[in-house]
């Protein structure tokens, strides 16, 4: 990554880090303190990736705002009732509530389940040192990544989900990340570590809800340390406001036969980034990365989806769909790397886009880098408008043009939304679609 | 002509799992042999081993053609010696036209035998005649080899190749599977038309259906990698009536 010029705004983050450093006390784990120190050093070294020329990783997403605006951490208050009305909720689930980036045990529910414990990451750092130290910052590495570095240096509390070996859960862990109303230019750094024991099976939902209407800076990182033969299913819901910069990172490392499936739903932000990288480090690993992005107005949503196959018999599926309206812009930058010797790899990659208005722009770049010959890899991308033949077909059966268009757009989205489980989550998203879709600036089609 | 003695074979790159376990068989010039047997008995393996498919490894015994061992020969060299395999699942090859393929194959065969190659004109004439003979849709000849062909069309295309190359020993691997009555008749006609005192056939089949149209001289039953019984056409009739039950090992033995 290109070294960025040190911007004046960096000073603000520096003083925040100074505060974190000062508040480290005898209760803090020394290894965690040094992890934060090295993360900060990395961030100071590389700065924000705002350079435009030769910056392939951020080719289509300009973060210039980060050089001009300052964001800092502060924490608001919220009631349980407000949380429950803002996000899907079930008393059967294990729910962790994170407010403005800080884990709040008092709002959380069912934290210690059978075989799955949900705790504050920082508080567990000493007690669960053996597990946490070998995973935290090891799966989501700070090197060359300003936002993982910033999150690692500045996260408050964090959430630690530990799934014991062999456990198969029926109910999900839900992590509700809320940005509260009441203050602008707030920075929050939600951090989640999931460790899945060998042959365990669990699912984790992350909801990102923004209750403010001002500009915020949300920088979440989730890293998933998988055990051999384990399966983690991950759902990511990003409902942002149109002034916010939301740059999320998801990282996994797969031992043999480990499976990570992730489905993302992203809408709303001024600048959003869903940066996922799964590393299939041992044979027989599998990953399925699906997502839906809906952009409207001047929103900008970037999806940086990457899978590396290091060993034989790995399988990966990338499938993203986009709905673009208004003057919005979306990016799909998919990458599949098949390393030498990773024979019998199966990799699929696809991005499909529905363009609803003039002024919207999709930049899609599904790329393959293949260094092994006995593999099956395919990718594809499409962009187009609502299919006129389908529209006509529905209208010929008496459906109004408006309703027909809604059905087609919702149907396009539904393929991804249906994947969200339990059903209560997909129902929650369908409700959202009912307001999001008619609000799209689609030149009168919707 | 063909002499198979104590043939053992297994899937290459696999430790165990011998599929052929001491198969013996002799085919004389002009004879039509049928190899019947239950699924998994090793019929297709035998057909492919005869043609030299490298997915299988011969672990013992020998295959002799006209007294010479062909075990060490590559598939193309066996083909030059006159062995033809009609595939159960012919490969699809994009961009290669059937015409071009057959011309190249016949050229290679003639060259290997020290015969004069056909000119483009001579070959076209020959090929067109064969296309008519096996009643394959000529439009298919403009497409890529086997790509988008139906199951029946693929089998007809195999018969077209058989008719064009005129091998000395043709091995038909389940050519009758999945064919309708008309296609079956085409296969039978192709084989019957080519029957001659110096050409032999091995028909590998699960059912007796094909044998109603092509009357074999010898019928073998292949079970668990060995020919457990050999007889005349009446053996096929018996199998059609009673199935393979009588040839199967006792349940206790099967469990061993």
């Amino acid at each position, binding site marked *: 990554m290109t070294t960025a010029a040190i911007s004046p705004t960096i000073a603000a983050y520096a003083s925040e880090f100074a505060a974190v450093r000062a508040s480290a006390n005898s209760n803090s784990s020394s290894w965690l303190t040094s992890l934060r120190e090295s993360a900060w050093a990395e961030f100071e070294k590389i700065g924000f990736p705002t350079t435009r020329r030769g910056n392939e990783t951020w080719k289509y997403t300009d973060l210039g705002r980060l050089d001009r605006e300052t964001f800092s951490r502060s924490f608001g208050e919220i009631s349980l009732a407000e949380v429950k009305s803002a996000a899907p909720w079930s008393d059967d689930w294990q729910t962790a509530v994170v407010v403005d980036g800080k884990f709040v045990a008092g709002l959380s529910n069912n934290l210690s389940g059978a075989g799955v414990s949900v705790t504050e990451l920082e508080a567990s750092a000493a007690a669960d040192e053996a597990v946490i130290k070998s995973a935290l910052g090891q799966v989501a590495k700070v090197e060359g990544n300003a936002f993982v570095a910033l999150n690692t240096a500045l996260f408050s509390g964090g959430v630690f989900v530990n799934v014991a070996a062999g456990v198969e859960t029926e109910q999900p862990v839900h992590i509700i990340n809320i940005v509260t109303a009441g203050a602008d230019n707030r920075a929050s750094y939600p951090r989640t570590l999931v460790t899945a024991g060998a042959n365990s099976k669990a699912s984790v939902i992350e909801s990102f809800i923004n209750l403010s209407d001002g500009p915020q800076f949300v920088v979440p990182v989730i890293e998933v340390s998988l055990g051999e033969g384990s399966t983690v299913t991950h759902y990511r819901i990003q409902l942002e406001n149109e002034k916010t910069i939301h740059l999320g990172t998801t990282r996994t490392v797969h031992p043999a036969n480990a499976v990570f499936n992730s489905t993302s739903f992203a809408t709303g932000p001024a600048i959003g980034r869903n940066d996922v990288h799964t590393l299939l480090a041992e044979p027989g690993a599998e990953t399925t990365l699906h997502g839906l992005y809906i952009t409207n107005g001047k929103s900008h949503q970037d999806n940086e989806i990457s899978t590396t196959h290091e060993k034989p018999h790995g399988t990966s599926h990338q499938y993203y769909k986009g709905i673009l309206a208004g003057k919005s812009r979306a990016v799909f930058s998919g990458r599949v790397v098949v390393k030498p010797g990773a024979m019998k790899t199966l990799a699929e990659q696809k991005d499909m886009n529905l363009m609803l208005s003039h002024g919207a722009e999709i*930049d899609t770049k*599904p790329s*393959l*880098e293949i260094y092994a*010959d006995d593999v099956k890899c395919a990718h594809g991308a499409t*962009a187009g408008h609502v299919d006129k033949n389908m529209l006509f077909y529905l209208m010929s059966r008496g459906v109004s043009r408006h309703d027909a268009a809604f059905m087609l757009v919702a149907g396009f989205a539904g393929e991804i939304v249906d994947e969200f489980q339990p059903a209560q989550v997909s129902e929650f998203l369908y409700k959202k679609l009912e307001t999001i879709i008619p609000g799209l600036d689609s030149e009168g089609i919707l | 002509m063909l002499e198979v003695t104590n043939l053992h074979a297994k899937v290459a790159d696999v430790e165990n799992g011998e599929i052929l376990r001491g198969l013996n068989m002799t085919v004389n010039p002009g004879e039509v042999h049928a190899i019947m047997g239950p699924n998994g008995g090793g019929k297709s393996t035998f057909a492919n081993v005869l043609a030299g498919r490298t997915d299988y490894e011969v672990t013992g015994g020998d295959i002799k053609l006209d007294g010479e061992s062909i075990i060490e020969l590559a598939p193309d060299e066996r*083909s030059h010696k006159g062995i033809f395999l009609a595939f159960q699942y012919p490969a699809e090859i994009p*961009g290669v036209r059937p015409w071009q393929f057959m011309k190249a194959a016949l050229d290679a065969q003639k060259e*290997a035998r020290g015969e004069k190659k056909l000119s483009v004109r001579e070959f076209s004439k020959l090929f067109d005649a064969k296309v008519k003979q096996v009643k394959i849709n000529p439009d298919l000849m403009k497409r*890529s080899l086997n790509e988008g062909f139906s199951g029946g069309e693929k089998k007809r295309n195999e018969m077209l190749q058989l008719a064009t190359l005129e091998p000395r020993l043709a091995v038909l691997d389940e050519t009758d599977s999945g064919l309708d009555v008309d296609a079956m008749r085409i296969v039978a006609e192709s084989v019957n038309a080519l029957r001659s005192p110096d050409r032999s056939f091995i028909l590998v089949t699960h059912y007796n259906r094909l044998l109603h149209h092509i009357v074999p001289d010898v019928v073998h039953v292949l079970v668990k990698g060995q020919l457990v019984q050999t007889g005349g056409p009446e053996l096929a009739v018996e199998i059609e009536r009673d199935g393979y039950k009588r040839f199967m090992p006792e349940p206790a033995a099967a469990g061993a």
Partner: protein
Amino acid sequence: MTSSKTPPSSISRETDLSGMEYRWGFVTDVESDMAPKGLNEDTVRFISAKKNEPEWLLEWRLRAYKHWLKLEANDAEPTWAKVKYPAIDYQDMYYYSAPRSKDAAPKSMDEVDPELLEAFEKLGVPLHERQKLAGVAVDAVFDSVSVATTFADKLEELGIIFCSFNEAVQKHPELVKKYLGSVVPYTDNFFATLNSAVFSDGSFAYIPPGVKCPIELMTYFRINTEGSGQFERTLIVADKGASVSYLEGCTAPVRKTSQLHAAVVELVALDDSEIKYSTVQNWFPGTKEGVGGVYNFVTKRGRADDRAKISWTQVETGSAITWKYPSVILKGDDSVGEFYSVALANNHQQADTGTKMIHMGRNTKSTIVAKGISAGFGQNTYRGQVKIMPGAENATNHTQCDSLLIGDKCGAHTVPYIEVQNPTARLEHEASTSKVSDEQLFYLMQRGISEEEAHHMIITGWSRDVIRELPFEFAMEASQLLKVSLEGAVG
């Protein structure tokens, strides 16, 4: 491209070249006129003076040279392509090398240096009119200088101009001045800028309004002199309603040192015209160990006006490094752009090639069929951009990229950039990666075809959608080239 700091000497290590498979690798012993080694303003002036160029062209070259100096000072040599090579020392090469003729340029074929004619005969490009290829007019370019053009008289009757670039500058300055740099400006990119400053010759073709060029036009490029860069410039203009099919072939001798080839091709297709541009590129690829070979850093671009069509077909088997993206600017309404490519990277070859389709006009249509073959240690990258500008209503693109890997030490990469700014556009991009399957090989071999021939048959079949776009003779040559280039990689 990653220009490592390894000194260039590492590629000129002594290596036994006797085992070479490259069949076009002979050196022709002709006397050459050369500019002194290195690049400075005097080099540019020297070249321009040698060519007896008008002042405006010298000025243009000098502007390009000054721009290039700026680019070089800013390290603007492109580094984004997936290729690696030692840093190029731009002062350590010859920028001008011309076969020396006793007097002025030859008036007829009989006056062309027999050594040169023989060289082209060996390449299979007969320049004697009596041996002319049926229906192909040939312009032969030897070390950047056009040495002979066949059929020129006959074309002249139709008003078609087909001559060396230099001759066009002398005889048709108004056409050259009007179109030179109109599609690839001298500021375009590092290598195009360098070419604009030092280009020595190339081909020029102009087809007048409504004329369908009845024969194929062909330029045959040959690098001969050691240590010389080749910087030719081709400009083809199809006036309104005109059409032309143009072929380009290239070879170079076997050399231990690498040679830079930085050409520029500009195509101008005015309303209702059609240009078909076919390339069979067989520059010296370097030895099996990766020593020497041509660095083929080429800028090719066409502009299609209303209802015009530009079609690029390329079979790229040569060069140590290929950096090349023949592009079409679909400026006019209803214009069409096509790109058909087979690129092969065997041994230590590296290819980063693809296309750009820039849709500006309404109802514009582009098709991309790109096939990459990787073998040995070869690295093959398809890099393509499809951009739909806001005003390009109802634009369509279909892209098909396929990679074939032969062996487990090579790489195949696909990097498409699809940028859509208009909702009425319809785009589809598909890509797949495969190897020659054992089933396919066994099937062909069972019918008596040797393993090597079976590989060749499968590979050319797989490339067929591209090869069939070539004129017939070229298609045969391309198929043979694929075979020869893959010798040793299969079987």
